[in-house]
């Protein structure tokens, strides 16, 4: 498979490469079909959705989007998107702050029980969310925080996403120590060193953390389903679900227009940051 060695005659090598690309493109087309279908259906008039198998709509039905923009139970889509945005940004801030603090301690500082605590941190990555779901719900219920955004955001300020602590630790371990040492010689305490030297160098890992947190929070369903009741506070994901419940299957067009609106931020994030995303995933799997 490595090019130089596979000794097939020279002429076939170009052909082989074209074949590889053709194969990759076919797989890609099959994979992306559902996304094209989503976009096309969101623009189809009702009578075309179920009768025609053609991907492209006969004529563009813009009213699907105006219906979708009206939102659900009198709450506009703008409001719903704003709610999702608020929660996601809160979670991003929490994760970046708390996970980088913990990661710095694990990656660079020495303290008693570091080994066992690090191992424990890794183990919590494997802990099923459902094992703590009910007691967390009870705790937040006792604190009067159900039907507010606190149960969704607060845990992120306490570094509960061990995956990101691990990701940042991996990155920090690769940083050269010299800069920290010269900062210390210049009289920086650990906090100053962390804030002015280490954190700026860790930026790529922090960006990866921020993007993943944003997308995962935006997509998250179960936590929002449990904690939010007031339609005014709904996220776009929750609203999409009640939109489905309220409309019959004949209202496919507006439903998928709503779907498109709800995944749009993820798609935009993906296009803007795919390099960080792919890099982040690759490093998380390799250095464990």
């Amino acid at each position, binding site marked *: 498979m490595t090019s130089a*060695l596979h000794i097939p005659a020279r002429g076939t090598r170009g052909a082989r490469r074209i074949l590889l690309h053709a194969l*990759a493109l076919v797989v890609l087309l099959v994979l992306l079909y559902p996304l094209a*279908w989503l976009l096309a259906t969101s623009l189809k008039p009702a009578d075309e959705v179920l009768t025609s198998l053609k991907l492209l709509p006969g004529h563009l039905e813009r009213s699907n989007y105006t219906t979708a923009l009206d939102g659900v139970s009198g709450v506009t889509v703008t409001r719903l998107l704003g709610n999702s945005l608020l929660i996601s940004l809160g979670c991003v801030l929490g994760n970046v702050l708390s996970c980088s603090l913990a990661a710095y301690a694990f990656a660079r500082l020495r*303290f008693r029980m570091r080994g066992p605590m690090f191992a424990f941190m890794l183990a919590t990555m494997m802990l099923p969310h459902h094992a703590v779901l009910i007691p967390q719900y009870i705790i937040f219920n006792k604190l009067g925080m159900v039907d507010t955004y606190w149960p969704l955001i607060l845990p992120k300020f306490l570094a509960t996403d061990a995956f990101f602590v691990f990701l940042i630790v991996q990155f920090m371990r690769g940083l050269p120590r010299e800069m920290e040492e010269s900062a210390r010689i210049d009289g920086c305490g650990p906090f100053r060193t962390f804030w002015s030297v280490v954190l700026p160098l860790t930026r790529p890992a922090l960006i990866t953390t921020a993007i993943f947190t944003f997308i995962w929070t935006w997509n998250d369903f179960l936590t929002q389903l449990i904690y939010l009741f007031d339609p005014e506070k709904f996220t776009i994901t929750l609203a999409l679900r009640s939109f489905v*419940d309220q409309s019959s299957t004949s209202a496919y067009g507006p439903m998928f227009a709503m779907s498109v609106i709800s995944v749009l931020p993820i*798609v935009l994030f993906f296009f803007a940051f795919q390099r960080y995303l792919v890099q982040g995933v690759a490093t998380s799997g390799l250095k464990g």
Partner: protein
Amino acid sequence: MTSAPRTAAPRPAAAPPAGGPRRRGPRRERQGPAFVFLTPWMLGVGLLTLVPMAVSLYLSFTDYNLFDAPKWVGPRNYTEMFTQDPRYWRSVGTTLLFVVVAVPLKLALALGVALLLKGMRRAKGFYRSAFYAPSLLGASMSIALVWRALYNDGGTVDSVLSSVGIHTGGWVGDPDLAVFVVALLTVWQFGAPMVIFLAGLQQIPADLYEAAALDGAGRWRQFASVTVPMLSPVLFFNLVLETIQSFQVFTPAFAISGGKGGPADSTNFYTLYLYERGFTDSHMGYASAMAWVLLVAIGAVTVVLFRTSRSWVFYANEGA
């Protein structure tokens, strides 16, 4: 792996006379700040992980509906679950079937596409990102709804199958097929393990392949004797991660069954049933017992995977 030489070098230089009273000074000085950095994490672990786990264990031996005080019932939730609740076993069966189907398919596809991309010089970055896209989108409610429509009666998949003479009447409404709709949606998101495989493939030194080729190994032999052993740690990482995640699948099951786990409980995945018992029926004790069984099951599966890994996962730096 990579950090080993780096940490080994400065250590002797920083603290030459290991042991003795001199060592204590700087060490103690460093401990305090470390724990300040760790405060949020320790609070999180304590208040949102350890305490809830203990509470959940306690609640699993009680009757609790969130409003009245928990009533101690001993192991009744567990005995009811194991001996008197066919829906529980159905959800276990559905989840296991799903894990056994989706995880190997997903990993095989991920590895296959990674191998396909590895040989490419051009446009690799483009493919890598494009194949990764479903991994992010697939977790959303929207895409789960798309899947429901595609596999519904009269949906695209049904129509295509009908045109070649296979009449299913839609997978979503068929108790035997509905679980595979969720499985296919999961397999579709093979991008994340694919990216990890690809990064792993690129770390295999080219001279191993050269040596193998000189020894007369063909492509399959090279795959079996070089690629697979060198990739086994990455394969293991992906296997553990995907297995753990698959046990917890929720959103697609919820979307495809309209939140009810139907038809005939065929998509009532473990987590969906847990949600129903706990949050719809207010049987928090029963749901806690379910959560603990899930915790133990995932722990057990992980331990088994780690045990068997000793015989097939190969770490290059172990022998050296």
